[in-house]
Every structure is written in structure tokens, then in C-alpha cells.
């Protein structure tokens, strides 16, 4: 049972890493559409680098066995921010819909990982241990 859960966790981790990872290419090369989102819609000039670096760290943490839970926490936080961005500033038209859905898929993956690996989370595990 535990092994199955871990296999599921690794599938979710890989989904999150692939989705976040492929956007890094656009963020770091300064793709016009990405710059448009960050500068015009969100009013965060250069924000693609800040978010991109945070996502890169999340991807790395998600792939190192001892830090998966931390990577999922960071990933979930970033994707929550992304979804807030879609709701309040970016909207869901055309290409933005695809991006928004990918953010939701990544968030769901990260939360799945957090639930499976809840016993590895620093602030939660002590409360779970004796239950």
C-alpha cells in the first residue's frame, strides 16, 4: 500500500516538474508573451526571473528524495499565486486558459504529493505521529 502511494507521488512529482520546467524556457529566454503577462497584466517587470528561479528551485527539490515534501510545498505556493494571478489580472482567454489549467494541474499534483508525504512535513509530522 505504502509503495503504491509512493509510486503515485513520484508520478505527481514528475507531472509538476515537467509542467513547471517547460515554462522556464519561456521565462528565462524572455519570450514576448511571457514578458507581456508579467509586465502588462501583472505589473511585475522582470518578475519572470524571480518566479522562474523559485520554480527551478521547486523542480530541483521535487526530484531529490529527501526534499520532495519541501519542493511540493514551494510548488503549491507558487501555483496558488499563479491561479490568483489568473483570477485577478490575467484572465482565462485563449492561450491564458491553457496556462491557467496547467497551473491548476500542477497545484493538484503538488497537493497530492503533500498529502501522501504529510508525515515528512516539518510542522505537521509531530501532530500526526501518534495518531
Amino acid at each position, binding site marked *: 500500500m505504502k509503495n503504491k502511494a509512493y509510486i503515485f507521488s513520484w508520478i505527481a512529482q514528475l507531472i509538476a516538474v515537467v509542467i513547471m520546467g517547460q515554462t522556464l524556457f519561456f521565462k528565462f529566454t524572455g519570450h514576448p508573451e511571457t514578458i507581456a503577462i508579467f509586465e502588462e497584466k*501583472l*505589473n*511585475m517587470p522582470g*518578475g519572470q526571473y524571480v518566479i522562474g528561479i523559485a520554480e527551478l528551485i521547486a523542480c530541483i527539490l521535487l526530484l531529490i528524495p529527501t526534499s520532495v515534501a519541501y519542493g511540493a*510545498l514551494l510548488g*503549491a*505556493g*507558487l501555483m*496558488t*499565486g499563479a491561479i*490568483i*494571478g489568473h483570477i*485577478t*489580472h490575467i484572465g482565462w482567454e485563449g492561450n491564458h486558459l491553457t496556462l491557467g489549467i496547467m497551473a491548476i494541474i500542477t497545484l493538484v499534483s503538488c497537493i497530492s504529493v503533500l498529502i501522501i508525504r504529510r508525515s515528512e512535513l516539518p*510542522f*505537521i509530522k*509531530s*501532530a*500526526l*505521529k*501518534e*495518531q
Partner: protein
Amino acid sequence: MIGKLSIDLHKLAKFTNLAIPILAILFFVAGLKVSFYFHFLTVTFLFLTIINFFYLKVQTTHSVLRNFGVLGQGRYMLESIGPELRQYLFANDTEEKPFNRTERAEVYRKAKNIDSASSFGSQFEFDSSEIKIRHSMFPISKDKLIPYRLTFGEERGVANSYTITKPFMISAMSYGALGERAVRSFARGAKMAGIPMNTGEGGYPKYHLDEGCDLIFQMGTAKFGVRNEDGTLNDDKLQELAQKDSIKMVEIKFSQGAKPGKGGLLPKEKITDEIAELRGVPKDRDVISPSSHAECKDIESTVAFIDHVQKATELPVGIKLCVGRPQQFEELVLEMKRQNVFPDWITVDGAEGGTGAAPKAFIDRVGMPLFPALKSVNDILAKNEVRNRLKLLASGKLVAPGRQMVAFCLGADAIYSARGFMLSLGCIQALQCGNNTCPVGITTHDPVLQHGINIDAKAPRIANYVHNLEHDLEELLASAGCRSVKELTFDHLFVPSESTLYPFIQSN
């Protein structure tokens, strides 16, 4: 009215629990109106709100978290680093247990070959319970000292008798309790220092043998390495072991100071595949040795068992025990006289002795402390006129020359120490021995933690420690006006009325 400034932690926690979701909303609004960067804080506080809800309303195990929420974690966080904070910052130099900073520092200095002179005055209490050594008005010069020499097995005329030339030996620590690198460091250091090392009851020695030092094979109650399926002794295996060049003596462990009346304990966290194989035990549960040897049902069979092992191994064979009742020990001695069978030595382990893992009640409350136990044993042997039939070894917190000297005055012929050598190897008294998480890599099998030990760098520290102990012992002997430890007697001790040895003064 003037209000006093004070912190009500419960009110503070209630305020925090309310503030967290409010702040999450405020940051959301700021993210909407001011800058999207505020959403970093929105997300952080949103997550904190969720965790706090879990603490306050969902989980049921921690009362502090149910009442205080995230702030309650502050208690657990600080508590978890409490031992470190106390050791680094707040604990007095003489108040830590089992070894205070002064005692540890003395061993570290000896191991690193740094001069251990102290300044201004002693940190000890002079008016209460500390035993002192009586010096002579006419100390002798050190060149008059007789070189130390002790031969085990000479009383019985054992062909393979064994002689030590330094009165120190590395006490029993098993491979299992110790990691591989620690075992190798001790063994290599023992060879450099020219002292023997006890293998502990950890089964067939492996890494000890690689380093080529003299070994005392310890046979615990479970007889790891030399047992039959039913827990009795397998003579063939014992004989095979006894024929190895490195194995000089065999010690039968009846009880241990840290847990007398109970067998050895190795927590399952520390059982690797290799240890399971060497001991012949399963991996998935704690290994608990029986509380006594299968062969030893009463005093008569116990003495017969000693005889059996002596005949089977043709080596010096000793016993190790922690004294509970001196009368019971006397019965054992009388039976030894009746059968005319004596072990070649008796190790008296004080209840203050160390361990990798033992039940707390046993560590704290069971067994006689070393000094009164050693004195009782020596007196009983002398009273029955058999003191010259065997050697007497002492163990139990004998890491520094002061206590070692007291043990010699009480009748010990040589000193066993385990923790003294662990400290030499870099032990910081983190008290993690049973958890496989030793921060300096001594009592762990985790290769990452064992990386902390460089055997080539650490083995010489064992030798330095022995060398400096020997130096201090010689100085103390000279100041007492004695040429060897054999000349030390109970009269060389000043025993204050609060001491556990005081009753012996009165009976003398």
C-alpha cells in the same frame, strides 16, 4: 493605576491566530491594488491559516497546539534544541551528567596531548562528598616506581597466560553499539597504545581482528557468535575463536552496571544486515539478550560454567558483574572455594557504568555504585583468603586519573573504561547512542555520520589518552609515596562522612 508590562502567552496566541487570516486577506487586497508581489505574502499566510486550522481544530494529540496554534510550535522548537543550548551556553562547568564539562575537557586534552594544567583553584566541593587521596609528606621520585605488570592466568598456571604492562583496558563495547569506524579506531588505537580491547557481546569479532590488537572476547548472556540455537554455549565455536592469535582472554558477562539483572539491548534502528548475520538475529526488532546465562541456574552451576569455559578455551577467563548484594557475592566466593574454581579475574562494574541503550529505571536505580561495590568485593575476597587467586578489575566512570586512583586504593588491579575512550575519539555526550544518530559517528551505522571519523587521525588519540593517563598515575603514585598500585590501600583515601564509602571507615 500603573499597568505592569507582562506577556500573556495565551492572549498573544489568540491574537496571532486571528491575525494570520486577516493578514492573508490584507495582503490579497494589497496584491490586487498595489503590486502583485504582495501575493508572495498572501500565499504564505494562506498556507499558515490552513496549518493553523489543522492545529486548532483537526489534530487531537498535542494540547499545546490545540490551544495555542502555530505559536505553540515555538515551545517544541526551543525544547528540541534545549540540550544543545544548555551544553553550549547555560550549563555550569560542573553540573552536566554523566560527565560534566570539566571531566570531558580533561579527557579531550589528554587525547589531544595538550597540557591539562588548571588555574586558580578546583571546581570541586571540598566540604561534602568528594573523596580525596592522601599524599605522603615524603613523595618518592618517579624513577623509583616499579614498572607496571599484571599477568592474567598466572594463579592457575594457564599456558596461554596474558600480561598487560599498562593498567588500562578498553571496556566492552560491541560492534552493533559502535559503528565500524569506531571499532576500527579503538582497535588501531589499542594496538598503538599496547593495551587490550574488549569486544563487547556483539558476536563474532570482525573489524577488531582486522586491526591486530589484543582482544578480550566478551561472552554475553545471549552468547552471540558462540551460541547454539537454544542459547547454550557451542564449545566448538568458542574453541575455534579461542585459537585465534588476537584473542587473548575470554570474559563471561553476568551483568552490566547500567542494566544489572537485564540482558544487553540493541535497538532495531541499529541492526544492519551485517550485524544481524554476525549475531544470528532477526533485523526487524530490538535484540534483547536474556537476563542470565542458560547454563547458570544457581551458584553451583555458575561456578561450574566458569570452569567449563576455562577448560574449553585454555585461556585466562574472567567474569564481569555488577554487585547487587555483597552477601550473594560472598556465597559465590564460598562456592568457588568449595569447587576450587576461580575466574582469572573479576570485573566489578559500578551501577554508574555506561550503555548504548538500557531502560531508564535500570540506568538510574539498579545496582551498587562502583566504589562501595569494589570495596565490598575486595574485602570479601580478602576475608576468605582468596584475594591472591584472581585479579580485580574496576569499571564505571573511570575516565580520569582521580577516580582511577580511588579504584586502585579500593583494590583494583587494572582499570576498564569505555566512555573515556569514546570521549578520546571525539564523543560530545549528545546522548544519542541508542538512536543511530550519533552526531560524531561513533555509535551509528549511518555512513554519512560515520564520515566524521577519520581512523588514521583518531587512533593516535587513543594512544595519547593512555599515555597521559599513565603519566598522571605515575605522578599520583609518587606523591602518595607508593612504588606501584599494589601498595595503595584504603588508608590512602580521605573519605568524608557524606561519601558512600564512609560506612567502610566505621566498620574498619
